[in-house]
């Protein structure tokens, strides 16, 4: 019952968020502000994690492929496909759900309990569209940047650590990452990442927006926002993979 209630209220909030805007110029600058806060601010963590995961996949798959029948360049294929298909869109989104999601939920939750949202409403501003829409749009607009960045650094990290540890040569790795490459996979990932960005921006925003009480509740809203985002991201990962790849 509670789930159904949340579900309905979430859709009403989304409809309000994408309702009529007050002033276009304000929204444009709000979107840039959020891209700067949420997007640019995440480049660092996405970069670091991607490099390391690329490196780990290289070394692990080289270790597992110690079979004369499997060519060494399979390592490159493994890194490329795991980065492009799953790691960059899904795992990075889970991490961003933690980083961006919690910041969105606690920011909006704090604004709720300190009556800042009421102050917006009293001015005649649609607080949902003013606060939530720019965040969602910023996350979706910036998701391809983070995705490509993560894919690139993952494959690059695999390359550097692969060569350094000697499990793969330059030539083999490059053959691997270009072998039977399907550009469609990138489109598929872009699509997934955009859906996930919508989830990790909107779900925590929902939990923040309906916070009641004090700072304790803001913390709870933030946790809930992250947990629900993660579950939804994984569920949609399954659904989209089934729909788009099968």
């Amino acid at each position: 019952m509670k789930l159904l209630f949340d579900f309905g209220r979430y859709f009403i909030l989304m409809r309000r968020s994408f309702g009529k805007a007050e002033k276009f110029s304000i929204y444009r600058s709000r979107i840039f502000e959020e891209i700067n806060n949420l997007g640019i601010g995440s480049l660092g963590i996405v970069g670091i994690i991607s490099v390391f995961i690329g490196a780990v996949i290289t070394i692990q798959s080289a270790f597992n492929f110690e079979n004369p029948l499997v060519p060494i360049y399979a390592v490159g294929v493994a890194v490329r496909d795991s980065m492009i298909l799953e790691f960059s869109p899904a795992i990075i989104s889970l991490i961003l759900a933690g980083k961006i999601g919690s910041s969105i939920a606690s920011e909006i939750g704090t604004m709720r309990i300190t009556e800042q949202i009421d102050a917006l409403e009293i001015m005649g501003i649609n607080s949902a569209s003013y606060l939530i829409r720019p965040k969602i749009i910023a996350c979706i607009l910036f998701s391809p940047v983070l995705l490509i960045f993560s894919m690139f650094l993952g494959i690059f990290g695999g390359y550097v650590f692969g060569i350094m540890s000697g499990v793969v040569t330059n030539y083999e790795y490059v053959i691997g990452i270009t072998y039977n490459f399907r550009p469609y996979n990138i489109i598929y990932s872009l699509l997934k990442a955009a859906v996930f960005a919508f989830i990790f921006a909107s779900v925590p925003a929902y939990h923040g927006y309906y916070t009641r009480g004090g700072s304790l509740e803001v913390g709870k809203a933030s946790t809930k926002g992250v947990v629900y985002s993660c579950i939804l991201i994984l569920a949609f990962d399954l659904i989209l993979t089934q729909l788009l790849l099968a």
Partner: protein
Amino acid sequence: MIDIKNISKSFADRLILNNISFNFEKGKTNVIIGESGSGKTVLLRCMVGLNEIDTGDVLYDGRNFYDLKFKDKKEIRKEIGMLFQGGALFDSKNVEENVVFPLSMFTDLSESEKRDRANFCLQRVNLFNSNKLYPSELSGGMKKRVAIARAIAMQPKYLFCDEPNSGLDPKTSIVIDNLINEITEEYDITTIVITHDMNSVIEIGDNIMFINKGENWWQGSKEEILKTENKEVQDFVYATKFMKNLRTKF
């Protein structure tokens, strides 16, 4: 002029407002007083729709707020300047940006015109040289004053102030009281002030409502409140020694 008629409001099964009616007059400072927890803030929030009411009507110059469509409610809200009890400044914006904010949202003034207007409002609340500070860097009283400046930035037709001078020293308090009074008369607006401070009541209370147990217990002017025989109002007004001593003069 704002008319409220038979407003009742409960949270869960606690009745907070019980059948309150009152006429807030235009061009006058209307004051709501009452014990802490008596429902003053809730009443104000109900009047602007931040809390839904259970029954009753709120009329803004004849326009019945709760009968209006969402869009028209928003139009009324644009005519309201509201000071929240906690200030409700936007933490992510500095003092000047807070005051400029409603102007950016709803007017087409140039940047310098907006800044001039903001500075004018900030000067009226006695705030100088704090334009670039953030709310976290302000004292409680300064926050209140910035919030007042923001509330009057758009030249509202209805000004609601929830405890404008709690946390202010007596001198600044008077400045704020006088400011509210001046604005009210100058622009002929309908002002509602919630206060605990008997000084303010006597200073600016043209039209006073005393809320007790969620009811409109007593109403009258500042002259009348000092002479009332109503027991609860007397207890409220003459709670302090100072006021008790003063009473012997009447």
